[in-house]
């Protein structure tokens, strides 16, 4: 599965590695919902690190559509919340 880390690039993550990512993803979601900046930062970094660890980076000139997208490591909790809103990062 192709995962894009925004601002970094795309990685190919094997299906069997997704379950571990899902657990971290759930932590991240909980942190966003509770508005806990510290927990959010830790969860996002853990998730991104895990993706970087298990994923295989795609060359910059490959044109694969991403199946999963993750916010950049330095993204602020409010920024991510706005990305997850109906408007997304880019308004219609």
């Amino acid at each position, binding site marked *: 599965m192709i995962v894009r880390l925004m601002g970094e690039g795309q990685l190919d993550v094997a299906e069997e590695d997704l379950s571990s990512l899902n657990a971290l993803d759930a932590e991240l979601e909980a942190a966003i919902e509770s508005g806990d900046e510290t927990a959010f930062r830790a969860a996002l970094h853990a998730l991104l690190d895990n993706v970087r660890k298990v994923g295989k980076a795609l060359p910059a*000139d490959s044109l694969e559509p991403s199946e999963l*997208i993750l*916010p950049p490591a330095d993204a602020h909790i409010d920024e991510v919340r706005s990305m997850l809103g109906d408007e997304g990062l880019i308004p219609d």
Partner: protein
Amino acid sequence: MSVMKRMSMIFKSKANKALDRMEDPRETLDYSYQRQLEMLQKVRRGVADVATSRKRLELQINQLEQQQSKLTDQGKKALQVGREDLAREALTRRSGLESQLGDLRGQYQQLQGEEEKLTLASQRLQAKVDSFRTRKETIKATYTAAEAQTKINEAFSGISEEMGDVGLAIQRAEEKTDTMKARAGAIDELLASGALEDFSGPKDDIQAELDRMGSGPGVDMELERLKAELGQGPAPKELNQGSPTAAPHQQQDTPQQAPWPQNPGGAQ
């Protein structure tokens, strides 16, 4: 729903609306480039901050050095006027400044090293960002070309579909023509065999007229012959007996007269 899925879904729904705006590699690359520029800006600001701190330290060091030389001078002057106690005080203060200066010089060197490292990082990052920009533009151009190619292919397939439709119409027309030909052939055969009567108008009328015309004189001649046999009328006439319009008139007026050959020019 998870963050990853929600983000992907939002991006994908947007993609459907406007040609994959964020997942369009061009948009993503531009966004990535923007972030790299921001990062570069941060590093540069860091370099500037360190440089400012270093300058400040430099000024402090200069001030302390000036103060140090001033205290040295004061110490000398105090000795010259025989005030050893003052000279001692000046030298004591100077030694205090010495330790401060040592600390500041250490900090200065540390900052200088930091600044050099940051400047180098900034230069490297700048080079990376520049290289990324070039690569990004290349990828964008490739993507645009691929997109154009896709559109061309679509246009071509559209045309071929249309051509297919035309082909189908021709095929249908041909089939219809063949069916009609087969039907016409079958009717001809049926007519020829007599299984079907030919009711086609003009041909029938003409044939009937011709038949009537053909049979007409024969019937008249036979009638005359029978009449002659029975003694009711003249003997059968030849076909070239004269004007057909005059015949009925003569028959009416002279029923018992000599036959036509005896007076061939009578009527003329």
